[in-house]
Structures are given as structure tokens and as C-alpha cells.
């Protein structure tokens, strides 16, 4: 069973968002890393890059597949997790911790309200699996 921490917000593209003031930390969920398999490559943007909600900000790749990363919230990247370039396997090992991907200064913090709660996301992935 995929791990879905209570205190995070989730998108239907399988990203999670941790909110701290107007800073959103974004990564991919346990469910997503598990469906993807061994992650061998992560591409993240540079600090300063700006994205609108739903826009692609990078990619995660396994041996077999490419998965685009979509930011669930709008804003400017304040920090990107460069360590994933050399240690992409962290995405499989610690998707909610070490493998965070970017921190964004949100331009529309209200966007978070439209994201899924942990319980809603769990239902959503169950429906996808069935």
C-alpha cells in the first residue's frame, strides 16, 4: 500500500505539496515512484524559473518511461534539489523527504485549496488501480 502522509496536499498528477507560509515544497508521491519503477534520471529547473499551475517543470525517468513533472501551484522556483541529478534513486527511497524536487514561492497561495487531501488522493489512486 502506498504511503500517503496526512499533512500534505496532492495533485491528480501524483505530486505532493508541503506548505510553509508562501513557500511550497513539491515532489512526487510514493504511489508515483512505485508505478514508475527505478528512477534513473531527474531533471529539475533552475532557481528563478517561473511556472504557472499545471505547467511542466521537469521530468523523472525510469529505465522504461518518462514522466513529466507538473507544478500544482504557480510561482517562482526559490530552490531546486540538485542532489537528485547524481542520486536519482532517492526518489524511490524517500519520495516525501530527501527527494523533494523544488521549492516555489507561491504567487497564488489560494491554489492549494483546490488540491486533494490525503484521504481524497488515496481514493483517487485506488480508483486508478482498479
Amino acid at each position, binding site marked *: 500500500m502506498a504511503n500517503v502522509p496526512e499533512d500534505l496536499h496532492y495533485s491528480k498528477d501524483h505530486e505532493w505539496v508541503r506548505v510553509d507560509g508562501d513557500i511550497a515544497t513539491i515532489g512526487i508521491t510514493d504511489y508515483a515512484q512505485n508505478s514508475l*519503477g*527505478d528512477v*534513473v*534520471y531527474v531533471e529539475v529547473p533552475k532557481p528563478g524559473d517561473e511556472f504557472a499551475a499545471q505547467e511542466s517543470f521537469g*521530468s523523472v525517468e525510469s*529505465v*522504461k518511461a*518518462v514522466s513529466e513533472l507538473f507544478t500544482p501551484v504557480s510561482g517562482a522556483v526559490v530552490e531546486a534539489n540538485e542532489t537528485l*541529478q547524481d542520486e536519482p534513486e532517492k526518489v524511490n527511497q524517500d519520495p516525501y523527504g530527501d527527494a523533494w524536487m523544488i521549492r516555489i514561492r507561491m504567487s497564488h497561495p489560494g491554489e492549494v485549496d483546490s488540491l486533494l487531501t490525503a484521504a481524497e488522493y488515496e481514493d483517487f489512486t485506488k480508483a486508478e*488501480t482498479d
Partner: protein
Amino acid sequence: MSAPAPDLKQTPLNATHRRLGGRMVDFGGWDMPVQYPAGTVEEHVRTRTHAGLFDVSHMGEIDVRGPDAIAFVNCLVSNDASKLIDGQAQYSALTTPEGTVIDDLLVYRVAQDHLLLVVNAGTTDKDWNWIKSHHSGQAVELKNMSADYCQLALQGPDAIRILQPLTNVPLDEIKYYHFCEGNVDGVPAIVSRTGYTGEDGFEVYAAAEKAEQLWNKILDAGNFGADDGILPCGLAARNTLRLEAGMALYGHEIDETTTLLEANLGWICKLNKGDFVGREALARQKEEGVKRRLVGFEMIERGIARDNQDVFVDGQRVGRVTSGSPAPYLKKNIGFVYVPVEHANEGQEIHIDVRGRAVGAQIVRTPFYKRER
């Protein structure tokens, strides 16, 4: 666990794959495991360092018997089946009149009047119809045995150590691309020293209903521990292993739009063996020289090339990636592409359009990986 889609074909090991936690996908109309819980990277590396077991029962087997067996097959394939001796296998291709590829296959000579053709799963029906359509009066009997056989591929440096205790066939004495009929765990089988991984190993053909027994027995025999034991391997590892080993995959490097010569398979074109379908076209192309050629490349910038991405030389589009993937053992990102011969030299820099980004790569010698002997 979800049930397989009803319109997909299954090998006799379908339930076994599901029990082992295989992630099942639609592979050319077959419900097949793409990977097991160990994951593609581990399956790939374990096959290079110890052993991997692959269910390849979806492959097709066509039986050709009769006094004209060799002559009949030799008119349809590019390699010279008349050079085979009993117990020998040969890599070959069914060719169109244009010298392009209907399928690549293995031709096994069981006896002078008995050949077994092992063909790709996705092309079995096409091959069968093509072969049948050339049958008129030759003294041969054709039989599509694809559903009757299971085929297990045991690959890796530990293959012989795992299989020998289970079989009366003296494995050491089977040379590469040769085979022997005998028993495996008491089951009548063909044991062939062939494979699609670049490793030493064996392919075992037996009655479909014995698949599970053989599969379980081989996994048990190779259970040398969590880090050193055999792993069941899915189609993703099978693909990356063959790619590292520089082998063509039908539908990717070769198909009915590529000739054998363009694909660097001139070594299986025996133009002087007598007439065969496509001989004339291949002879002409050999004389004129090919205009494009299949080459291997390695990414030199950060990025992974994927199938069908466009390839550029000096800003000009020259071709598209036929197979592109990370290479788990080499820890590089590699692929194959057809390029015009003037750009087909080792060291040639190319760029691959990876989702809108031009990523640098260079043409390298293949195979990318060659095992130490």
C-alpha cells in the same frame, strides 16, 4: 491484483508471473511481465553478474519437416540453412523481395529433414502466413507449434551451474548456437546455448504444460541468496540487455522498411548460396552501397534518448532513434539510429531532440557491452 484483459494472449506462466508480483503489460497483444518487484535495474545487473530467468513462451515456433525442409526454408531466409549440421542453430531473417525484413529468427536443424523456426511473438501469424504462401508442391509439412511450446531463457554467468544439476544434457559440451535434446527435471526438452542478452546462457523449449514446473525448478536451483541468486526478469530488462549487447529488435531496428544491409546484418546475407526472396535486391544494394546505416550512439550530455526521437547532424534532421534507453550495467544512456553513411563514422557528433531540447551524443562502436570470456 487485476485480471488480465480478456483479449490479450497469455503464456502458460501468466498466473506464475502474477503470483511473483510481475507488473503485467500489453506487449504486442500478450499479457506479459515488464518487471518483477526487484525492478528492471536489478534484474538487468543480476543477469550480467549471476543469472536471470525470462519467460519467452510468447515466441513462435514453426516446425518444418520433410525431405525438402532445408531447400524450402533456404529459399525464404537470408542466411544459409544448408550449412547447418544436426544440433546447430542459426540467426537468420525472412526477407521481402526488396531485401527488407519480415522477421528475424533462429533456424534450428533437428535433423536433415526437420527444421524448427523460432520467430518473434508479434510476427508469428504474419510469418506463418508468409511461409505457408510459399508452400506449393515441396515435400515439406508445416506446423505452427507456437501454442505447444513454452520457452524459458536462463541467462548469465551462473546459468550452467544452475541448469546442469537439473539435466542429463552435458551443457559444457554444447557450443554457442548449438543445442541438444534431452531432459530437464525429467521433462523432454530442447536445450539451446543461445540468448538475447549478451551473456552465456540457455534457452529451454518444452511442452507448454511443463512450463511452471521448469520455471519453479530453475528458480529454486538458482536460489543462491538475496544478493547472488537468480532473479525472474521481465521484458524491460530483456530489452535493455539486448540493447547493451547491440542486438536488433524487430519493429525497432529492423522491419519491412529497413534492409538487412542497412541494419549491419550483411553477415546473415549469403548472396551466393542460391536464390532466395530478396537476394537480387540485396545483391544490388551491396554493389551500389547502402545510403544509410544503423549505428549505436552514447549520450555525451545529460539526457536520455527515447524511441522515435529525431536525430540531427549540424542542425539537419538525419533520422530517428530506433531504440533509446538507459543502459543499467554500463550506466550510460545509449541507443540506435539510422544515419546517412557519410555521418555514420565512430566519433561523429549528433544531437537528439529530447522533448524539445537538443542533447549531444556521439556515434560509438557496437556492441556497447561485450562480456569477458
